């Protein structure tokens, strides 16, 4: 991220032809047309905030995944794979697939049966108003900030890649997102996310195909990387035995327990930005299938994100460097690998589609943040704390206006980030503070009926506070890294993994301790919210091919095979 900030002054990477511009303009026209078309279908609160709860598993699943393909996902992870090799794929496989399957099979029934509108809404039902207030205010605050960062990132990328003015890009993207989300609500956001998902694949898939042809297939790619960098860059697990044996400075325990068990579980199962898409499914089976479908496609995303980074490492004549060196030498940075590969293979038309894919990725992330903010603001803050007796039409109106206000705040954040660039790093750190403890709270709430309201609230507060505390400790005293991340060699990513692990464990410990010391709620009040006292609808009448469990096993097997192949 800071890398892109620093490179804003470099010359543009590609030049667009008129046909490329037509493709980009057509994308914006289509996105707005969908928003206007769907306005008529967003009249009630259920329509506007939950897309009528009538999405099929495929649409909910692709939208669930697409909402995560925003921000610097495409360019950032392509750059990370150039820098760290195939280790970056952990964020797509062990850092996503187990969590998505866990959401589908274990957690989704409780979210769906409770008929909650949001994750903070579930906390209200399970732990009471204080827990909801804590999570909803922090979520709303962070979401608009993240949306602003998305917006600024997109504008910056367009400046770097195309030479476009930052103000122009912010204006166009913010107005477009505000219009189509305010008009059609979550349904419009979901429709556009599915469209954007398809465009991302259509625009980016050609790079790995042509890259592999040029490199001489996978074996040729590995041979070139072994020459240009090191053979270790193409191994997922074999270099993770020691912190200083791999370019990421991470140990396998950080990847498995920090990333796989805590950070990804927290993100994919409790971040309302993604969970909201699944809650829009038409029935419980569709809601369970959606994350499984998303997981299937998530496993393939490295093909258009990680592989281009590796191809860049193998094929580019220019050596990409870190931010400081790139600024000093006016060279190209790691994060530019994707547009560089795009320019390498794509002529007129294809280049426009590739750039559209990048813009689509940013817009879907931004729209995802804004639509999630709108729901949490309207249902969990405005209706819960400010105006409890409004009509449905009033809340829909509030939803539309809060979309516009949310986008406006995001624009303000984008300019704030522009002036105070370190804010970006702090906000991203702040966002991570809430995810890991929230997972502990929600998981205990769903699986342990003895957890009490006081336990949930104090556990969440303790987990969040401890995460902030550990982060501040390392900031003030870098040598504390040996305690927080278990090694003085740990890098930022490794520190994040372990901080998440400790904060989740602290949250769980405090939740259990306080719960055991306080009076539990009667079982009757927990029906539909907790395992053991909730009747989960049987799937006995459904054929094997239509059962979520069957497809989860299929996805799980492919996941294991991929990890073994690239071991």
């Amino acid at each position, binding site marked *: 991220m800071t890398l892109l900030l620093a490179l804003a002054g470099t010359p543009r990477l590609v030049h667009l032809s008129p046909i490329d511009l037509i493709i980009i303009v*057509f994308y914006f026209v289509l996105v707005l047309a969908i928003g206007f078309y769907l306005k008529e279908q967003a009249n009630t609160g259920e329509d506007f905030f939950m897309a009528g709860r009538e999405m099929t598993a495929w649409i909910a699943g692709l939208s669930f995944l697409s909402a995560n393909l925003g921000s610097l996902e495409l360019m950032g992870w392509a750059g990370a794979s150039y820098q760290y090799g195939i280790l970056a794929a952990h964020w797509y496989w062990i850092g996503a697939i187990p969590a998505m399957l866990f959401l589908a099979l274990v957690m989704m029934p409780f979210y769906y049966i409770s008929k909650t509108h949001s994750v903070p809404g579930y906390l209200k039902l399970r732990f009471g108003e204080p827990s909801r207030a804590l999570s909803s205010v922090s979520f709303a605050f962070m979401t608009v900030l993240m949306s602003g960062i998305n917006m600024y990132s997109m504008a910056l990328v367009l400046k770097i890649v195309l030479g476009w003015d930052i103000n122009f890009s912010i204006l166009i993207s913010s107005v477009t997102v505000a219009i189509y989300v305010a008009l059609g609500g979550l349904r419009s956001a979901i429709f556009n996310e599915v469209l954007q998902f398809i465009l991302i694949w259509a625009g980016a898939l050609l790079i790995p195909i042509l890259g592999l042809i040029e490199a001489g297939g996978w074996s040729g790619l590995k041979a070139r990387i072994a020459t240009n960098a090191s053979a270790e860059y193409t191994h997922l697990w074999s270099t993770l035995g020691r912190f200083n044996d791999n370019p990421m400075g991470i140990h396998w325990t950080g990847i498995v327990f920090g990333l796989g068990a805590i950070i990804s579980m927290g993100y994919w199962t409790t971040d309302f930005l993604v969970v909201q898409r699944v809650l829009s499914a038409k029935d419980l089976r569709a809601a369970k299938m959606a994350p499984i479908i998303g997981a299937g496609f998530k496993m393939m995303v490295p093909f258009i994100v990680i592989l281009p980074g590796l191809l860049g490492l193998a094929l580019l004549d220019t050596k990409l460097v870190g931010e400081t060196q790139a600024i000093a030498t006016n060279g190209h940075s790691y994060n530019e690998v994707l547009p560089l590969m795009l320019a390498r293979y794509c002529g007129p*038309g294809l280049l426009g589609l590739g750039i559209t894919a990048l813009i689509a990725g940013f817009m879907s992330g931004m729209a995802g943040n804004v639509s999630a903010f709108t729901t949490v603001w309207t249902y969990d803050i405005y209706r819960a704390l400010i105006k409890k007796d409004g009509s449905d039409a009033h809340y829909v109106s509030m939803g539309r206006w809060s979309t516009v206000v949310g986008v406006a705040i995001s624009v303000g954040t984008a300019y704030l980030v522009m002036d105070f660039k370190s804010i970006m790093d702090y906000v991203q750190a702040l966002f991570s503070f809430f995810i890991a403890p929230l997972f502990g709270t929600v998981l205990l709430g769903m699986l342990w009926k003895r957890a009490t309201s006081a336990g949930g609230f104090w556990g969440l507060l303790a987990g969040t506070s401890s995460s902030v505390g550990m982060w501040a400790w390392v900031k003030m005293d870098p040598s504390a890294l040996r305690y927080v991340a278990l090694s003085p060699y740990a890098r930022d990513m490794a520190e994040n993994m372990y901080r998440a692990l400790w904060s989740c464990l602290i949250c769980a410990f405090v939740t259990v301790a306080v719960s055991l010391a306080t009076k539990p709620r009667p079982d009757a009040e927990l029906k539909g919210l907790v395992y053991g006292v909730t009747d989960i609808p049987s799937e006995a009448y459904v054929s094997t091919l239509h059962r979520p469990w069957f497809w989860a096993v299929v996805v799980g097997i492919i996941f294991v095979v991929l990890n073994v192949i690239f071991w």
Partner: protein
Amino acid sequence: MKRGGSISIWFFIGISLLVNGLLIFGAGVYEFFHPPVKQVVLYHLHANIWWGGILAVIGAAYCIHFAPGKGRV
């Protein structure tokens, strides 16, 4: 997803792929007959022709299959 007489999302996707595919295909054909001075790597494979063609065919199939009024979701 569609409701009542509304249009399926897959139809919109079909429109997008069809239009983009035709534009890319057209640009590829033009390049084939008027080769640029500065060519991309693997230019001889004419990726924009076949990739544009693939997108256009898939887009057309979606447009037909999910055309408004056919009752598909």
